[in-house]
């Protein structure tokens, strides 16, 4: 039944509805694919019993002509989402075998709509990383390889497991989260579609916190329409998250295929970064041409503070993380390492439980918030953040959306950027601005580089205007006609 895993979410849903195949068959086909793809290390926990049990319930509903918009759809869940009774670790040793006694709002919404859980997906520890190499469960391997090479490549991060599961057809779609690029950069590196919605669109309740003013959930999917279907289910106001926006959720799939004629697209000149590979520059120009051919008006715009977004982020995100991660004290859940007194227990637990990158960020955060440095670092970064948000406000006076590259390179080798934290941080240079401004950003696969590796382009929209991104994204998807697939070298 390998054919069932090749389906898009949309086609699977329509086949389930017309009973061409059952939810159990869909789930089993994906469980088999997952069991045959352990070399990718995309899943940190497989939940086959739960999957089949949920699929049976879906089949019963479908047989009665009932069922929600995602009835019987097999999905992977990033390990940052708390799932009731199912181990949720944020891929950190400090959470140990933590089994939440509650369900995150986003996953609750998916189950409400009939989705089936295949298991929990690998990620960078606490979502801190751009290569999935900081995971306590080891790195995910990108399904894509350079032409004629066996060298293992990173899938990007932090949602590396989500992107890999979708790219390798191990799930019809996956949940992911994005604090500085963690949905869009791995989507770009694996030839998948990912959207980070407007801040507040998806509830953060039950999602392990990294940097609360930046964290947002979103889907990684095979197509723009699949991403729209998933985001519609994931979104919605939640009284349990005070930053969840009390606004209605449009049917995002309704925007797919709508004419883009007359829309104005901004091309920010500051995104022409020094040392950007010529093929990314060329692909970007091609993307501009596609939208022009579809009837869009192209406008050059300026976002003058773009280069300061990453350094501002590396103050703000660690500051929030050092505060959020203070809860891991070894008392109420997760790891506890004993010591002579309470302080020693704290210090030993956190030393043993946090990985190197998490420690670096917690220390940076504690430093920039400490007495004497608060104004110079933290307050300065918040002022720069305002400048960045103002840049977008001004650009959106003139245009409906922006088009940029998603990432400054295609997939890179495992270990390649590991020695230099700043080199790794630069992966998010084109995505992080969007988090700081709270805007939606969508990445879609646009072409292959000379090595045969996928490259993505990013559409950035006004707050709460995800619909326009799906509209433009579907027009670009059609023009790009991206059909390349990774060779299934991993199949056991």
């Amino acid at each position: 039944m390998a054919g069932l895993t090749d389906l898009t979410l949309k086609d699977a849903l329509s086949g389930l509805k017309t009973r061409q195949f059952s939810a159990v068959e869909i789930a089993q086909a994906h469980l088999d694919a997952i069991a045959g793809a352990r070399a990718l290390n995309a899943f940190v926990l497989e939940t086959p019993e739960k999957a089949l049990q949920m699929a049976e319930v879906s089949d019963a509903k479908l047989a009665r002509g009932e069922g929600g918009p995602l009835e019987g759809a097999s999905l992977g869940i990033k390990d940052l989402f708390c799932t009731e009774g199912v181990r949720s670790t944020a891929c950190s040793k400090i959470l140990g075998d933590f089994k939440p006694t509650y369900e995150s709002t986003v996953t609750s919404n998916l189950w409400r709509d009939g989705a089936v859980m295949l298991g929990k997906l690998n990620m960078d520890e606490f979502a801190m990383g751009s290569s999935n190499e900081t995971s306590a469960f080891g790195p995910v391997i990108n399904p894509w390889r350079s032409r004629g090479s066996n060298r293992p490549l990173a899938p990007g991060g932090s949602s590396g497991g989500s992107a890999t599961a979708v790219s390798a057809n191990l799930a019809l779609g996956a949940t992911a989260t994005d604090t500085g690029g963690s949905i869009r950069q791995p989507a770009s590196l694996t030839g998948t579609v990912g959207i980070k919605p407007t801040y507040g669109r998806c509830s953060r309740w039950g999602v392990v916190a990294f940097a609360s003013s930046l964290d947002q959930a979103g889907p990684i999917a095979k197509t723009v329409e699949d991403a729209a279907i998933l985001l519609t289910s994931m979104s919605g106001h939640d009284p349990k998250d005070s930053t969840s926006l009390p606004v209605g959720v449009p049917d995002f799939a309704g925007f797919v295929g709508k004419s883009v004629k007359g829309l104005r697209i901004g091309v920010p000149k500051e995104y022409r970064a020094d040392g950007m590979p010529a093929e990314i520059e060329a692909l970007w120009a091609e993307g501009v041409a596609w939208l022009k051919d579809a009837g869009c008006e192209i406008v050059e715009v300026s976002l003058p503070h773009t280069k300061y977004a990453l350094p501002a982020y590396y103050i703000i995100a660690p500051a929030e993380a050092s505060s959020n991660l203070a809860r891991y004290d070894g008392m109420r859940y997760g790891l506890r390492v004993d010591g002579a007194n309470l302080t020693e227990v704290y210090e030993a637990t956190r030393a043993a439980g946090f990985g190197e990158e998490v420690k670096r960020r917690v220390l940076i955060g504690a430093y920039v918030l400490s007495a004497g440095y608060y104004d110079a670092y933290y307050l300065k970064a918040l002022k720069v953040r305002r400048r960045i948000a103002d840049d977008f406000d001004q650009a959106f006076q003139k245009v409906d959306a922006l088009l940029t590259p998603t990432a400054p390179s295609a997939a890179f080798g495992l270990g390649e950027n590991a020695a230099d934290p700043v080199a790794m941080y630069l992966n998010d240079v084109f995505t992080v601005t969007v988090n700081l401004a709270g805007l939606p950003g969508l990445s879609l696969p646009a072409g292959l580089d000379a090595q045969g590796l996928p490259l993505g382009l990013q559409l950035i929209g006004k707050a709460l205007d995800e619909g326009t991104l799906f509209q433009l994204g579907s027009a670009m998807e059609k023009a790009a006609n991206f059909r390349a697939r990774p060779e299934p070298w991993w199949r056991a």
Partner: protein
Amino acid sequence: MALDAATVRKVARLARIHVDEARLEPLAAELSGILTWIEQLNEVDTEGVEPLASTEAVTLPMREDVVTDGGDPAKVLANAPKSDRNFFVAPKVVE
């Protein structure tokens, strides 16, 4: 700005993370590298700019000040490394 080993020791203490003596110097070098790169923010004129801590355009909602959840100690304690009856067990704080 370059951090020295003594500052790293102090910050690690604030963050309640034990750092081995041998790791202090290398960590100081790593963190200094990051902070030096961050310092390009000083090129930005932020005179009179209001800090932006959250992008939320709407005011935060209010709700009735009533209990909406709780009363389930078994759930609260389910993941505790050590518990006794309805309590978390923590190391002794006061001698």
